[in-house]
């Protein structure tokens, strides 16, 4: 929080001893900022730790569930869509592509949904002690991020078994994962803020999430849409989740995957998903920050 009295003091004193007190003011403010971030980090670490301890408490397989869940979901999807409905026939390593996309999507879904409820769920805590509110949202997404990294290892193992040839492109993958994290965090901030005001968001979000899942080329290849309408497939690809999933498929699994860069045909249009991510991150961050001052009164 800005401390007006120190500022006033500074202005008052500046008239008499300009140099000395500018230094003094900077020093205290720097110390304060450093302290604030140190506190945030300590708290974030402890919250993530607690969250992880509690998540699989009492279950026999414990942490293993964070791997088993997406793999089991994958098994169902694989049998239904790849084996029965023959989606992705003729596309190399489509099964691994499917697993990768499911992993990425479940990260997004988990961080957005957990992040949305984070503020309200920790309401009683927020009313007892003052700490930066973004910590609870970030801690929810960090837990999901840890899950994602475990799952990506599983994906890589599957890819190796499946005989995927890795190229140097793999080194670009962290950039896309960073974008994915920023995008998910931005959505989490936006939803968390809205959820404090209207609890309906919880239900609406479930529907949107389900719609998004089918509007993104996860269980079906983009070529399936392109066969009906090329324009529709291009529009689908402009959704940031589709862009990121396709990019990662391109970088990790099969370099024949359609991405915004090789499919849209116009560089500026291809930039839309990334620009959208940045815009959303800025706006959601500001909206959250502005509203967070009043969270304790509204929860």
């Amino acid at each position, binding site marked *: 929080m800005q401390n007006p009295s120190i500022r006033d003091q500074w202005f008052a004193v500046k008239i008499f001893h300009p140099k000395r007190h500018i230094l003094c003011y900077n020093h205290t403010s720097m110390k304060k900022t450093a302290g604030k971030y*140190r506190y945030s980090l*300590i708290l974030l670490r402890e919250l993530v730790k607690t969250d992880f301890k509690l998540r699989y408490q009492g279950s026999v397989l414990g942490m293993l569930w964070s791997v088993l869940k997406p793999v089991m979901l994958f098994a169902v999807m694989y049998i239904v869509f790849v084996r029965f409905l023959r989606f992705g026939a003729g596309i190399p390593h489509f099964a691994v592509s499917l697993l990768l996309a499911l992993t990425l999507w479940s990260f997004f879904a988990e961080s957005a949904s957990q992040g949305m409820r984070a503020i309200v769920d920790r309401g009683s805590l927020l009313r*007892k002690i003052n700490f930066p509110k973004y910590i609870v949202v970030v801690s929810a997404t960090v837990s999901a991020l840890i899950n994602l990294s475990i799952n990506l290892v599983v994906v890589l193992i599957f890819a190796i078994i499946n005989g995927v040839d890795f190229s140097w492109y793999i080194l670009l993958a962290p950039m896309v994962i960073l974008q994915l994290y920023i995008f998910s965090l931005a959505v989490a901030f936006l939803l968390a803020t809205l959820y404090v005001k209207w609890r309906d968001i919880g239900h609406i979000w479930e529907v949107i999430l389900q719609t998004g899942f089918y509007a993104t080329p996860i269980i079906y290849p983009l070529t399936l849409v392109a066969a009906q309408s090329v324009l529709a497939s291009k529009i689908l690809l402009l959704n940031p989740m589709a862009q990121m999933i396709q990019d990662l498929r391109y970088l990790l699994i099969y370099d024949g995957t359609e991405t915004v860069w090789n499919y849209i045909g116009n560089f500026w249009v291809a930039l839309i998903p990334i620009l959208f991510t940045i815009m959303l991150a800025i706006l959601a961050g500001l909206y959250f920050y502005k509203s967070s001052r009043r969270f304790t*009164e509204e929860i």
Partner: protein
Amino acid sequence: MVQKIALEIKNVSKSFKLPTEKSNGIKNSFINWMKGRRGFKMQHVLHDVSFTVDEGDFFGIVGRNGSGKSTLLKLISSIYVPDNGKISVNGSLVPFIELGVGFNPELTGRENVYLNSAMLGFSNDETDEMYDDIVNFAELHEFMDQKLKNYSSGMQVRLAFSVAIKAQGDILVLDEVLAVGDEAFQRKCYAYFAELKRHKKTVILVTHSMDAVQQFCNKALMIEKGEIVKLGNTAEIAQLYRELFMGGSQKAMIKTERNGISNRNIDINTKLRKTDDKLTFDVRMRSKVKTGNPEITFVIRRDNGELVYRWTSGEKIAHKLNLNTICNLRIGIENIFPNGIFDVQIAIREKDRTKDYAIFDNIISFEIINKGSHPNDIYWKPKEEYRIDEIAQ
């Protein structure tokens, strides 16, 4: 020595939006908007409050429930933001609005200590250092690896308080933490407050207990309906508080009175009248079921549960009581009560104990403050005669 200001509150006001109906749904928001309703009512909790706390002050904030003192505390702890005015804090402030913030029943005692101290801003290493101290103070060595849900509530409080007092901020904000734990632990807490006072720590204490205020604080603030009633030395504040809210100069004061109280068997209505030397209780009873041979027991207990007076109709009245009509019982007791808070309990049972019609606790609670006597004078003063004979050997 020039005293530095630790905390400055300047013209602070705060009001809350109280939703008139459930308005955290989009539908309700929309309906309210359509009908031009605001969907909430403004509740003014604090109005233009200003005061300063100097470094080394033990500052008491007193007030009744709903007077705005907790809101003030949350503003100081920057959990809420003020509508107007400004609050400046000089140094690090450690708030204890509640003990054991973030305690999780599924974690062990040890894990909770680390979590709780992280909330208060301590890193893992710092907590490592003070861990033994905390466990020693709480006296919970053998329980630290048990889950918190297996602790008794008293043990939880002890653990929480121990973490709290090890947190070394510049300014300590304490809310009502005095009223917890068993007597031995409470004594320990008081000893800790005394230590804080000796070390000239800056403490802000919110409490109902005038004893605590008088014992520890050097300055106090009384707040009522969101406005400062008085800011001054503790003796004045305690005196004023007692006069306003406890009936101060009167001999006895009724704290709470549950006039109409009933269960499915019996309606009961109790009134207390007090004069300087007598307390008179009027109990009006009417039974809703057919009673056989009922017996009324009237008991006064001290707030710590100690039985101080008992009256039973079975011992005093020979004839059979008829509660099926309205029955009035009047008991007058000589007021030799010492200072303290007392509760009245009434039980109506079948004389042969085959049936309980009603057992009502805390029908009336009253506080006795004898004017002129020392507030800590809590002994009974019956009429007494004594004589000392010195017999030469």
